[in-house]
């Protein structure tokens, strides 16, 4: 992680060229790695379910790295390109496929991220896919069954996916409203790997690694996570994410006192309700000296 922080200038990638070059840290909780590998071998699309900040994106990055394509015969694999699209309410089909743009001579076609992935054989990760507009499902369906086709309607083309292409989507069943549920016809095109916050020991290891703090503090943070998640229904959504716990840990690593770090990274981030804040605060002060 320190390499990242010492990077002086931003690196600019073409979307299809970007790949995870260094192996990301990922601590497997169950059999998600062999499952994903097997799915990839068989080119079965994958749906990752789980609450925010539990490590879905990290997992995809890790798998992209692990499933790199063979480099000129033997030796190390080159990482597999990974194209991530964070879906939002206004994301339409043409945002994914591509569109014509006007220029001096008339118009020019620009590929969208999905088209690029299909062409280069990348893993395309549509994060929070239910947020996207419904017309995107039209694209997803032919790509996720045996056809592996991407219709590019405006160009009157159909692109057959390159061999390495795989569609991965993520979905957080917790906070989306009933209106934004994933349609069954869509769901049933993916295998689902469920994620949850890691158990205490694992989470401790993750925090310890990511935040670079000692095992005691990491253990306490993991304990805090577990306790706070017991308060889920008090307007806390799914409870504190591993990501937030790591933030707290990182602040501690920089010398912020544990109680203060938890206050800003956990208590205040989670809720505005004064009483719930106070309760979390009390849990924090019970765990940290």
């Amino acid at each position, binding site marked *: 992680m320190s390499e990242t922080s010492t990077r002086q200038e931003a690196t600019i990638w073409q979307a299809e060229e970007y790949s995870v070059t260094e192996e990301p840290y990922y601590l497997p909780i169950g059999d998600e790695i062999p499952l994903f590998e097997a799915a990839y071998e068989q080119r079965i699309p994958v749906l990752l379910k789980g609450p925010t900040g539990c490590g879905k994106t990290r997992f995809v990055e890790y798998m992209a790295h692990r499933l790199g394509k063979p480099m000129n015969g033997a030796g190390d694999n080159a990482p597999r390109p990974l194209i991530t699209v964070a879906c939002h309410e*206004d994301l*339409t089909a043409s945002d994914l496929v591509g569109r014509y743009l*006007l220029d001096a001579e008339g118009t020019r076609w620009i590929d969208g991220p999905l088209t690029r992935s299909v062409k280069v054989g990348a893993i395309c990760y549509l994060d929070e896919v239910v947020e996207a*507009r419904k*017309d995107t499902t039209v694209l997803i369906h032919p790509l996720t069954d045996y056809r592996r086709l991407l219709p590019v309607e405006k160009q009157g083309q159909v692109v057959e996916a390159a061999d390495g292409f795989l569609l991965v989507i993520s979905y957080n069943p917790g906070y989306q409203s009933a209106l934004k549920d994933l349609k069954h016809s869509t769901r049933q095109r993916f295998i689902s790997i469920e994620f949850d916050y890691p158990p205490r020991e694992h989470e401790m290891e993750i925090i310890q690694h990511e935040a670079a703090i000692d095992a005691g503090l990491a253990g*306490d943070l993991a*304990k805090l996570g*577990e*306790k*706070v998640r*017991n*308060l889920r229904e*008090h307007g806390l959504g799914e409870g504190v994410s591993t990501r937030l716990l790591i933030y707290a840990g990182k602040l501690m690593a920089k010398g912020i006192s544990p*109680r203060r770090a938890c206050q800003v990274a956990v208590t205040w981030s989670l809720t505005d309700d004064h*009483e*719930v804040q*106070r*309760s*979390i605060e*009390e*849990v*924090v*002060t*019970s*765990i*940290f*000296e």
Partner: protein
Amino acid sequence: MSIAGELLARHRDRLAGFPGPLTEHFEAGLKALSPRFSPTQLQQWAETGVELTALNLRSWEAAAEYFKAGPEFDPATPWSAIEHLGNEAMSMAGDSTPLAISFVRSAPATLRMIGPDHVRQWADLGRRLYKGNWKSSALAAQFYDLSPDLFGVLRLSQASRLAVFVDELSRHSYELASACLTAAPQVLSDLEPDDRLPFITYAVELAQSSWADSRLYFERGTPLVHKVHQPLRERFLLLAAQVARGHNRSAFQYLEEAANSMAQLDPATHHRVVEMSEKLAVYSPYAAMDFIINTPTVLEVVRLDELDPWHEGGLQILKSSRDGGEAYFRLQSTRGEDVLENLSARVELTRVGEVLRMYCKALTGRDVHVHATAQLAEKGIGWSDEQRASTEGTTIYLPEMMERYHDKDENFAAFKVFATHQAGRLEFGSFDFDFDRPAVVLERQRPAREETSSGFVTDMERFFDLMPNRKLASDLFTITEDTRIDASVKREYGGIRKPLYRMQEEELERRPSPRQMPLRDAFVENMVRVSLGGSDFIEWPMEHSQPMALALGIMELMLRPEATVEDAAEATMRLYTLASSIPNVATQELAEGEWGNVEPMESSGQAMPMEGGEMGGEGGQPQFGDVGEGEGQEGEEGEADYSSPEPVDFRGDFKPELVQLLMKLRDGAEGGDAGEMSPADLTPEQLAELMEKSAEIDLDSLMEGDIDSSSGMFLSNLMKEAGTPASEKDHEKGEGEPTSDSSTGEGEGEEPLQPIVTVYYYDEWDFRAQDYKPRWCAVKESKLQAGEENFYENTLREHAGLVQQTRKQFELLKPEMFRKIKRLPDGEDIDLDQAIEWMVEHKAGVNPNEKLYWRRNKVERDVAVAFLIDMSASTDEEINKRDRQQDDGDYDDDPRKYLSWWVSKRRQELATPPKRIIDLEKESAVLLMTALETIGDQYGIYGFSGYGRDNVEFFVIKDFDERLDQPIKQRLDNITPIRSTRMGPALRHATHKLNLTEAKVKILVLLSDGRPQDHGYGRDRTEKEYAIHDTKQALNEAKRDGITPFALTVDRAGHDYLKTMCEDMGYEVVADIEALPSRLPTLYRRLTE
């Protein structure tokens, strides 16, 4: 002839006409006075007397007294005094003979008290009381009669104040004045001389403001005054007098309460309290008195040195707002309460309960509740202590308040330690004991010790059955398990370690010395000390060091992270064996040197501590039964009965056996697995046995009466507890939370169920003080009883046309729910405006906005509405009164015509009773409900009435979550006029109900027939402002919560106060009352469009 003889001879004839004694008195008087005065003086004396006889018919009696007094004067009395006396008597007798008689009669004694120079002043005092009628004359005479006594306790100047008082009082009641006067000498003599004048001064003020209380004051005043520290009584009475001066009718009550409050205070503080009160009196004497009255209450919450800031806070408010300050010191202001709360170091459970609940929930991961311990004791399910923390498995019970320390934060930390320990029992599995599960750090001895493995209800019971002395076993298990829990808490929660250590230390310091105890008790006491981390605090006779060393080794195992509740149980068995081997004999005779500390004997997890020891057994399974006959041994000679150690405060009550029983019953009640215990499986016999043997149930303190009835009650309490999952329990909370639910019907099946009443407390706005009165009104919510069956349908039939019309109107609302949404990237059609804009931007080379489309979107109609119907007595009024008055005129000329009209009218009325306001309210409600059903808005219909702030009745006709079914339709019929209209709390409660719904649009419609009015809703019955301001405030609160309030009234005078009440909120005065049923739905439509 002497001058006396001469005078006697001269007047004898004049006097002879009167009854005999007159001459004798004259003679005696002459004889007594002649040696002291000159002949001229004597002659003057005699003539005055004789003249007296001639004034009127009865004046000779005054003369008799005058002569009689002669010999009684003090020999030193100068002539001038007697001369004055004579003149005064003459002038008095001219007005009223009885006056003169009394005056002259008591003169000798009185002059002895006041000295000869004050005859005139004295005479004037009495004369002041004389108003020319016989009653006043009697009163004045009484004054003279009592004068010798009075001057025994009062100086002349003081007596004049008393005369002012009596005079004032006599304006109202001569009787009372006379009674007070009679009592005065005694009352005053009971007081210290210095207190007498202040006492009278207060009386004067009292007579002016609240004269009738003077009697009470004279009866009870002295002891009241004595309650105040002596040097301060004058200042105290002066303060009280200032209130009386304000013409306050309850002046005496103020005095009484204040004096009683003073009595509760340490006399040493009186000076400060009075001084502080005086500072307030400058601004408001009421505040000053209320300050004194409430000081003891305040001191319950804050320490003495915190009284100053509280006083100062109120003084500042008082300076800027008299009403505000007065409310503050009356303890009727939220601001005042906040100040107190901030000053007080005490932490109350009601204030922190919710935080602690979430805290415990976070820790345990269970849906626990937090309640006051008293509630657990009330249940009668085995817990009897009302103070100590405990848990029965689903709820954590804590003391109502914490005031161990002088600091709020420390007290809260203490609360947290209490809560954490109880939560720890849940989190670390104290109640999950499984008899058959092996322990981790100790080897299992359990099954080997068991004789039969049946007939038990819980695993805990089965375990305790192993040991004959259950009390000892239970105490030891509590110690080992609490040790384990404390160790786990310290390990898991580093942040709480500090306060926990502190509590343990404090606990160790206050524990009794084991040296005073019999040996086995001392052993257990030492175990408690060890469990508190105090291995250095062990006091144990060195000659018995071996069992102690073994015990310490076992206790250390409890600190291991991997220890489980089964380990605690195993440890208990071993400790039990050790304890049983120690005779319970007195140890006092041991010398100092023989007491000491013991080093623990290493106990590896697997090794049996008693292995190879002298009380061990064979091999790895030491015999247990033979040593463990605790009860048997206690009977032996020289041994004391075993008694339990003092409980450890922060750990509270631990009743694992009961908790397991409850959990088992609960599982059964929830219809669990067939194999599970159900309440029916537990026979009374089993229960009685359980009660008898369990050390956890203290039957004596649990309930009174014989064991059979108490076990029956215990059983039914348990069943009730197990049958109702804890989540349904009401919990005590502040605003908007129900505090109790009382009286569900008793004797089911016999009579109809009483409605369940839930009480809520709300603040009330005092516009004078510009502050809330905290928890001022009690709103009692209950379901309205069902009324007649067909009311709802009949109303619909009666208004069939209107129903049709409103339905249609409401159905029209539906299409309007579709709105055009613009600026969409995709939609039904291109929005021309946007398209043009796009073209322009494109030409200009800017990145154009592509959102060119529009589409119709179905807007979710998400409305919740609460209707609040005024059920005050005034709604009983008939609505067609006015019409009849108009008709009346037509028949004035012809009585017969009028009579026939009247008869027919009467007949008609009997057939169809005249409509009242309430009837229209009911009908409107019906129409509205049908209309609302068509559009599917959430709605609740409520009625309110009540009397006084403690009794605001809030009737649920239809709650938000109820569906419109037959019982609700019947409830509608029962909307009837009841009592007053205290709108504020009813509005607040309806607001609370609306807040619980999750609708986007919330509306509160208040339907009333007039302005708010209730007993105590304002200074007096006629005051409007208070009630109106409170109602306005309640409406504002609703608005603040995002609710649209709307007030609707049928009172024609409504415009006046609705304007004040509603200001910028919607309101309407329905001019034509009968239009209400049709108006209401229309209005609602307009409101929600």
